[in-house]
């Protein structure tokens, strides 16, 4: 217990020292880097994952390919992939971002696909029978009904991107992971634990943002489905 207090004290000291708030190694700059990497790759992954997930879910064609890709992708060790990209392409941001996108697409893709495919066939039949065009069925019925799963996919992808962007500091990328990696190599425990605290805080904010988003956009008529990654 005493130790926990010490640890919090340590984080507090680190956070309040003024050098953490200025310059290239300051928290604002590192956080901005982290958010840029995560945001950009999540955005690209969302566009790709949604487009293919909606297409396959709506038409029903390519379901097997989607399931296979998603299963294989889950087995890829993110750490290995990021380090490999840096080794092969050198230390630049773009290739690492490509790797982050590749990791974030599968959860979005598979959940969007499952969400659309799982739409009650009666509701889809009724929508068509009442005279909705294909686009209207997709946008007015399938997407709203799949929204809980789509958001779940986005959340899992976001969590994965934030975590992998942290690990990407090891082969030399910026972002909040720098504190942890640099602290480890310098045996500076205050830096390690301070950096970890900021990473945890960011993860909690992401998690809370998705909970809020879900409340805001999912119809209360869709009873809360169990949410799991």
């Amino acid at each position, binding site marked *: 217990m005493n130790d926990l207090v010490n640890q919090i004290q340590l984080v507090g000291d680190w956070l309040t020292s003024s050098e953490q708030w200025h310059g290239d190694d300051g928290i604002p700059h590192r956080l901005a880097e982290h958010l840029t990497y995560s945001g950009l790759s999540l955005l690209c992954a969302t566009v790709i994952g949604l487009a293919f997930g909606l297409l396959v879910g709506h038409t029903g064609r390519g379901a097997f390919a989607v399931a296979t890709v998603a299963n294989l992708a889950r087995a890829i060790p993110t750490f290995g992939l990021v380090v490999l990209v840096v080794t092969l392409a050198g230390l630049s941001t773009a290739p690492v971002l490509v790797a982050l996108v590749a990791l974030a697409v599968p959860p979005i893709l598979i959940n969007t696909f499952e969400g659309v495919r799982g739409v009650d066939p*009666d*509701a889809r*039949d*009724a929508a*068509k029978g*009442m*005279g909705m065009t294909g686009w209207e069925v997709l946008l007015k019925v399938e997407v709203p009904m799949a929204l809980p799963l789509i958001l779940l996919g986005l959340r899992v992808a976001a969590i994965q991107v934030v975590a992998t962007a942290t690990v990407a500091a090891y082969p030399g990328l910026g972002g909040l992971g720098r504190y942890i990696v640099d602290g480890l190599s310098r045996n500076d425990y205050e830096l390690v634990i301070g950096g970890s605290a900021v990473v945890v805080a960011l993860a909690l904010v992401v998690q809370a943002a998705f909970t809020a988003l879900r409340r805001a956009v999912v119809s209360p008529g869709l009873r809360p489905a169990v949410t799991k990654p």
Partner: protein
Amino acid sequence: MIRFDAVSKNYPNGTTAVDGLSLELAEGGLTVLVGPSGCGKTTTLRMVNRMVEPSAGTVSLGGRDIREVAAPELRRGIGYVIQHAGLFPHRTVLDNVATVPLLLGWGKKKARSRAAELLELVGLPATMAKRYPYQLSGGQQQRVGVARALGADPPVLLMDEPFSAVDPIVRGELQAEFLRLQKELHKTIVFVTHDIDEAIKLGDHIAVFRTGGKLAQFDTPEKLLEHPADDFVADFVGQDRGIRRLSFVQASGLPLREGPVLPVTAPVAEARALGEPWVLAVDAARRPLGWAATDDLPSGGTLTDATLVPLGHTFSLTGDSARAALDAALLSPSRLAVGVDAQGAVAGVADAYELSAAMARATTLTDVPADAATAPEPGASAASTTPAGLTKGDAGESGPEKDGGAGGDGR
């Protein structure tokens, strides 16, 4: 109104869902498509709004080939109700009902006020409007489904087993209300069911399909029961079709006799003197009070002192069918059916033999004119052309309660 011309539907795997169907459905009529599973009845229904495209032949609506109209546009003008309602879980009840008006670009306000009217029409309280489908019972969901199909007031309604997912009691209520609604709205309705009882209860005309997508018979319910076209139809309408036909014979024409009816104030001696095994005690207004077994009568006093056995149930000469009368006879402790008039006073009694003799005469008599009347000519509704004593609407309306109660009410 709706016309099938040599319509077939074949699937690439070699199965034939519908085989050379030609059929003409009258405007304002309720046609039931009935048959075992896999007989093509649902496919036939879905070809009307192009949810299924025929492989051969044409379907026309109001004289126009439906292929001339773009499918979405066609469908917005045809109401569509399916088995599990298919409500949109993410929309409120009100917005579900407003779907088609919104698709037609009516504007939110107008669409919603129309939806509110429709909810009232199908008997749902206004408090339901803001609920979501998961908060409704199966029967309520089905009502919303019907209201939604009526959204843009389409002249044609397609209903695919709309009442088969709810329990029998709710189904009876929904059927009765649906008939009431149809009397008001006069839609041209195509209704699919696998339940021959439902078909007989609801249909002006019934099309019986056999496996392989062939039309076996197209007739009024009465004709179908009297003259099944072949063994398949006879088998499908059931062994008890003779009894079922009685649903279409009014009880008013049945011969009744005064029988052992006595005021409850009559002395026991008078009851004995009748020499009948049972005596029916009535009050001053001749309303039936109960049966008394002659053997169990007390030695003196009036019928008031006797133990009265409950009546079972009576039948009404003004509203019930011959089927209800026969049922009343079979369930009565004295084996005598008690017929009452509009005021509830006893009009007379009859036993099952007397009733069945009269019914046999009544149903034979109707055979001759019915032949001429039930030819599937467009515009001729069954109710307007069938002879007296065979009035469809009444039997249909009294159907749910009487049929449902046949087994249990007498206990």
